[in-house]
């Protein structure tokens, strides 16, 4: 009677992707979040993105910390790898995992508490170290799991459900990521999958640290008319600086995109991002310009979304460290141990 599993029946014309899976095959367990939580829409967007890209589930690793946000890896890609780590420490786990096996797609899921408060230090360092991953923050400006206190991303003057006003300016994780050297930074809104899904696909295909700050309203504790992170304010005030279409590498480009398509960006794996004109004449290649626009809209009480900044040529951690081509976890003893003769040679140099 109560709380049933999602029926397994699906739309008979639900498309199968290149590896024979439907979108339903990328689902996870049924969500336990509040009905209407933006985080569920993020799960749905990841499911859609992974299905559209024909990702093989076993080639994906999901990592998260603590919080409502960090629960969501349970709700998508149940056939992928996963690690639910300590509060704010997902970046360490992600770094370790990526060092051990650089061939997987890494999806880090965090929240504003996990990344902007307890884990802010970890966040800064994973950006700086350019781990090749997609790092998403489900940002609702509140500590939902502890019933609605102001979080570090709550805007100045925004109020909690009980009327407490934020006395401090917010930490904007997107501008922070740009400052610290992330090579792909975007912002989106959980309610706008048309924007979010291609950004997730682009972020997964991008080589290097890709960051998406997703405004994801807390329907229970921070969805009032006087919250800047509620559905009402976000629907009214999010403005796309760029509109993105994503074409996966495998898909042959047969149709020419509409005349409005302004710019193509080819990613490392051969996928292509099409940037469309939005009337903002926004160029996402210049850090200074990006920061200027984001802050200018913020002053007007508006939320700049879309692809904010990209540098497809920047090297990732493994390139910086010049590691071997094979993932570390596949190296054999033979490859790791140079043998007695070489060791003797090295020792000889110290004599």
């Amino acid at each position, binding site marked *: 009677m109560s709380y049933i599993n*999602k029926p397994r029946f699906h739309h008979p014309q639900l498309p199968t992707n290149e590896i024979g899976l439907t979108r339903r095959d990328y689902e996870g367990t049924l969500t336990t979040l509040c*009905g209407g*939580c933006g985080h569920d829409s993020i799960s749905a967007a990841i499911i859609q993105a992974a299905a559209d890209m024909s990702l093989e589930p076993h080639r994906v690793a999901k990592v998260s910390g603590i919080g409502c946000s960090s629960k969501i890896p349970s709700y998508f890609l149940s056939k992928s790898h996963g690690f639910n780590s300590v509060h704010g420490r997902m970046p360490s786990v992600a770094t370790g995992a990526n060092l051990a096996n650089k061939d997987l797609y890494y999806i880090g899921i965090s929240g504003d508490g996990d990344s902007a408060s307890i884990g802010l230090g970890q966040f800064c360092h994973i950006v700086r170290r350019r781990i090749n991953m997609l790092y998403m923050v489900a940002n609702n400006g509140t500590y939902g799991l502890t019933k609605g206190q102001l979080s570090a991303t709550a805007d100045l003057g925004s109020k909690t459900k009980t009327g407490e006003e934020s006395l401090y300016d917010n930490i904007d994780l997107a501008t922070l990521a740009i400052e610290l050297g992330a090579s792909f930074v975007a912002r989106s809104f959980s309610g706008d999958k048309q924007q979010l899904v291609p950004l997730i696909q682009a972020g997964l295909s991008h080589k290097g640290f890709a960051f998406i700050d997703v405004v994801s309203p807390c329907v229970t504790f921070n969805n009032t008319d006087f919250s800047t992170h509620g*559905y009402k304010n976000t629907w009214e005030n999010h403005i796309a600086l760029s509109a993105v279409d994503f074409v996966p590498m495998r898909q042959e480009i047969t149709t020419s995109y509409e005349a409005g398509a302004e710019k193509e960006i080819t990613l490392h794996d051969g996928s292509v991002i099409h940037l469309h004109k939005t009337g903002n004449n926004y160029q996402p290649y210049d850090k200074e310009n990006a920061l200027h626009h984001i802050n200018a809209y913020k002053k007007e009480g508006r939320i700049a979304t879309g692809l904010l900044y990209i540098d497809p040529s920047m090297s990732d951690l493994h390139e910086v460290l010049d590691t071997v081509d094979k993932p570390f976890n596949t190296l054999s003893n033979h490859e790791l141990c140079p043998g007695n003769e070489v060791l003797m040679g090295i020792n000889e140099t110290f004599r």
Partner: protein
Amino acid sequence: MNSTDIADPNYFHKVVDCQWACPAHTPVPEYIRLIAEKRYTDAYMINWHSNVFPGILGRTCDRPCEPACRRVRVEEQPVAICRLKRVAADYKSDVKNLLPEIPKKKNGKHIALIGAGPASLTVARDLLPLGYEITLFERDKLSGGAMRTQIPRFRLPAEVLEEELHYILDMGINCRFGEEVTSMKALLAEPYDAIFVGTGAPVGKSLDLPGHEEAAENIHTGIEWLASVAFEHIDKIGKRVLVLGGGNTAMDCCRTSKRLGGEEVSVVVRSGFDEMKASPWEIEDAMNEDIPVLNFHVPKRYLVEDGKLVAMEFEKVRKEYDENGRRLLIPTGEDPVILPCDDVICAIGQDNSFPWIERDIGIEFDKWELPELDKKTFRSSHEKVYFGGDAALGPDNIITAVAHGHDAALSIHLQCLGQDIHERPDPLTTLASQKMGIHQWSYDNDISSDVRYAVPHAAKEQTLNDLSMEVELGFDPELAFGETMRCLNCDVQTVFSGPLCIECDACVDICPTDCITFTENGEEEDLRQRLMAPAENKEQDIYVADGLKTNRIMAKNEDLCLHCGLCAERCPTNAWDMQKYLFNTAKAVNA
């Protein structure tokens, strides 16, 4: 698209595919839920009020509801609606105290019904509780019409038939059985306030081919032969029997033959196997009794030796289509096929016949010799004369006859009240929320993914030796419960309120069948392609609601909705609610 008018009684009715497809519009999901709760008597009474003969129909109905069942569109097989109806009849307790009371004081109106089949009996059932006096004429000595004469007892046991006939006959009908009405003119001269003709389509077609005259003794017409078996005038048939025709009557003829001494019984049809008119399950039952079906055999002549039928000659044909897409049967040129036989049963159709209705008394007939009728009121061109069942629109089925009976009874009642019979009362509908708690509904929304349960059959060795032994054993309560859990509860409607919606997408994300889309409005054609999954089944509506803050619309494809209620469970603002829509057609009692 314009916003959907959910106040239109037909809108949500159409979503309940089974009920919409049922000629009598029986509230199917409602009684299936009652069966799941083991409330068999309540389930039976819902049926009884709507289709009058639940035990009979639970065994014999043509089941237009089942191909319509939404389950077919998300998996392979519909819910076994018909056989669940039988469960209600099989396991109910005594219902006599639940039947309507018949007023002792009559209303002074007197109605004559001709033919004691399902249509007339439905009229009687609807009018007797209102104080009408009813006189029922039947040329046979027993009532039931086609239900008695054309459906063999191994499909419909006598006690089931008698029980349900008597619920009506015992209401106090002036029965004139064994009395054939020979003149409508004479009947009209009697002081009846209205006359209802429910005489069926009583004349079987025969096949007049060379040799017919000599072999006539061994050539039978299907419905007449079945009637003779039912009345025990016939109790045997030859060892080799050919049944011509591919309808349900042919299936009953061949299976009856097997039980009356037929050893080699074959069904022979002119066209292809897949063009046979019989219900698939009846063909299956016949073939399970080792009765082959020979297709593309066109009968040419009866072969007679020493004045006795010995075989039939057939021409083999194949199917082709002409440029207009019409199916043609082209002779293959092979040698004719000779099938030896002792008896031939022609089950190739039946006709209406009204030799007893004079053509100069104001009842007009069309070129097919069918009465000219208003298809809503079932009144003929004579203001006192109504038709229903096969007599009205040609051969159809029991449930259609029942539906006609209800409509005609309503017309007769309106006429007797002195009202316009075209002003029909509105259907009786209710729409009520089923919410009990955050994740609790008054109905079981956890749909079973089981495949359709098969109805157990008695052993062939036994049933083939006993003309009156019922073949189907029916579901036991456990199997029935499993089958009820397959019902999608399509009458529990998803009702949406735009102004309450905060556009969080929770419903879109959870919907298992991608029914829900929030998008910009557009023309229906365009919108159908822009939904989460394309909505290509044009027979199913798109539920459109506006009032959203972003000025988008909510568009829900009704086609594949599982009515699981997850949209409403996930909705944080109660913009979605699951509301049960009960729909009952207005009957005479509601006028």
